[in-house]
């Protein structure tokens, strides 16, 4: 989960990383009650980067200019995203701009601190001078000094920079962050440091133990444990095939096969693996039914390819779920009634491939439905392609 700049700075302030006096502006007229002296910067609070380049940050010296600038920033989309709030912030005279980040490196399986003596808006320059230090064992400030020296910092700046790194690392580790970045980290003429911009990504899996952070973003999560996604990704806008599998890699492999056979995919849906601690056979059956309903909502879907691998859920139960989806059930089941209402169009054709279950039982149960049931993956895909072309 990403945080906005002002949310990141609130956390910086909490842990003693210096930030400028600032104020959130929800509408241009809020600027009349500004408590920070002019000149100020007005900064669009969006999740997308590069706002500086496209006019998302403006410097103003009085209320009239500020209100005008606020109006225009509120109406300026950054890569399609409009700000809900602006940050009004004091100005800072930086003599030097550093880059500093803490990230979790998947490959080294350790946090890494990154620093560049050439921070600021020119990312390419920052990257060219980037240094990194792996936090191999428990963090201790000497890792921060190591980074400072690699960056070429000297004298007391080594210590003041290291102190910021230390606080930033504890923030990273206490709040289960995937990434925390300060860019630029300004250095003024006295050698004092100031976090001038901040970016934080909280690890989604850890959000459950940081309720205060989770509350900062009410948008639908990109990744939620144990739940189907809220929306579907479109692969090929011309596609007519939808895929439903259990497991991310299986979904990808199935998509690859369809694509290799010339099929055009519109949507895919992974109904999840079986490694959630609350998983039960019902979990798979419920999601299968729910997932089919989601995919069938889209008129463009002509065929759905179901690929369920793994034998622990009995095939009769899987078949029943599919049958429930295909045959609108008795009016007593209120949930399915709703499903029925939402179906305005004829149902897509189903090719069902089951592995590990007793296929004969499944075939029998689905005999009276139009679903095709198979066990060989390559042949099932050939059938799907043929059926879609019909």
């Amino acid at each position, binding site marked *: 989960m990403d945080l906005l700049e002002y949310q990141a700075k609130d956390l910086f302030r909490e842990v003693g990383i210096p930030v400028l006096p600032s104020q959130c502006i929800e509408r241009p007229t809020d600027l009349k009650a500004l408590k920070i002296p002019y000149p100020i910067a007005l900064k669009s609070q969006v*999740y997308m*980067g*590069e706002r500086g380049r496209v006019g998302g940050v403006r410097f103003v010296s009085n209320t009239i200019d500020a209100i005008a600038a606020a109006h225009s920033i509120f109406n300026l989309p950054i890569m399609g995203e409009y700000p809900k709030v602006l940050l009004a912030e004091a100005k800072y005279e930086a003599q030097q701009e550093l880059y500093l980040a803490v*990230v*979790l490196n*998947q*490959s080294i*399986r350790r946090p*890494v601190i*990154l620093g560049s003596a050439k921070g600021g808006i020119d*990312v390419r320059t*920052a*990257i060219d001078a*980037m240094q990194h230090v792996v936090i191999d*064992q*428990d963090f201790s400030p000497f890792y921060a000094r190591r980074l400072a020296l690699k960056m070429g910092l000297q004298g007391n700046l080594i210590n003041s920079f290291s102190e910021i790194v230390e606080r930033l690392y504890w923030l990273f*580790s206490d709040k*289960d962050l*995937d*990434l925390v*970045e300060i*860019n630029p980290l300004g250095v003024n003429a006295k050698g004092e440091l100031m976090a001038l911009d901040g*970016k934080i*990504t909280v690890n989604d*899996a*850890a959000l*459950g133990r940081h309720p205060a952070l989770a509350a900062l973003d009410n948008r639908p999560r990109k990744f939620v*444990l*144990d739940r189907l996604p809220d929306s579907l990704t479109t692969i090929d806008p011309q596609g007519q095939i939808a895929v439903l*599998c*259990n*497991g*991310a*890699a*299986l979904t*990808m*492999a199935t*998509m*690859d*096969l*369809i*694509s*290799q056979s010339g099929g055009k995919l519109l949507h895919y849906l992974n109904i999840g*693996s*079986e*490694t*959630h*601690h*609350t*998983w*039960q*056979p019902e979990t798979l059956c419920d999601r299968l039914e729910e997932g089919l309903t989601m995919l069938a909502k889209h008129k463009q879907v002509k065929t759905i390819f179901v690929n369920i*691998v*793994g*034998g*622990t859920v009995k095939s009769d139960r899987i078949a029943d779920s599919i049958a429930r989806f295909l045959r609108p059930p008795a009016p007593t089941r209120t949930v399915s009634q709703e499903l029925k209402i939402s179906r305005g169009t004829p149902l897509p054709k189903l090719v069902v491939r089951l*592995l*590990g279950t007793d296929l004969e039982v499944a075939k029998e149960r689905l005999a009276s439905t139009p679903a095709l049931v198979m066990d060989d*993956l*390559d042949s099932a895909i050939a059938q799907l392609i043929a059926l879609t072309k019909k």
Partner: protein
Amino acid sequence: MNFTPASKVIVQGILEPLGKFYAPLMQEYGTQIVAGVSPGQGGQILAGIPVFDMLEQALPRVGTVDTTVIFSPPYAALDAALEAIAVGIRQIVLISQGIPPLDMVHLIRKAEATDTLIVGPNSPGVIVPGQMLLGIHPPELYRPGSIGLLSRNGTLTYEVAWTLTQSGFGQSIAVSLGGDQITGSTFPQWLQILDEDDQTDVIVLVGEIGGDYEETAAHYIAEAIDKPVIAYVAGRSAPRNRRMGHAGAIIDSQTADLGPDLGTAESKVSAFKRAGIPVADRPSEIPEIVKRILKTPARKAI
């Protein structure tokens, strides 16, 4: 590695829904489950397995335990694993998904210091076909044999196992590193184990897009592995991963010296090919390559 039928296994989180469902299946398959642990629920019995509040209550009764399989809720999994390490268990299989990655970093540091082998998290675990099941692999798709199967996913691993089984190639072992951001063990670790394993003749590595697991594995195979390896990579048709923007760009460029395409299917396939490792285009091609390889002499002279 000690994954023999004689080795004793404990199941932590055995009364979680997932544990309750799979522990009896593991036992039926021949795994010697000597006890289960579920804090606050000690004293119960599941399928004849006695359940304790803590490992240290179980050990005096059941003797030295080789492996623990952990089904605990994700925020309790680190503690469960540390509890196991504290009582001397040196093989840990983490099934649960959703363990915060910094918990895994902590656990990996501890595992390295104590020479503990971790499988998972978010993994179906380990199966030694015909002998023992440590996790949730569907046993009916596997047969005993000489293929060592490595992956970092669940159902696709079963798919590949079945493809091999159908073609008459049984498996010596199948292990998934797990699908979470930080995994307890790595491909190089397992490649080394299987390279030394007498039961394994050929290694099949099932990869997928994202991260640099496969690139690192390809490099390691070229450097250090003597047995033949066959690779497969899922995700060639997947939409490109969303970049994290500004910060992401900087961080991506730092991960390793593996180029900007790192993590794509192309990057992985070409890394394998550069390392001289045959790459199957589809699961059903894997047994064909195995067949071909078994007819030719070993890739490297020892």
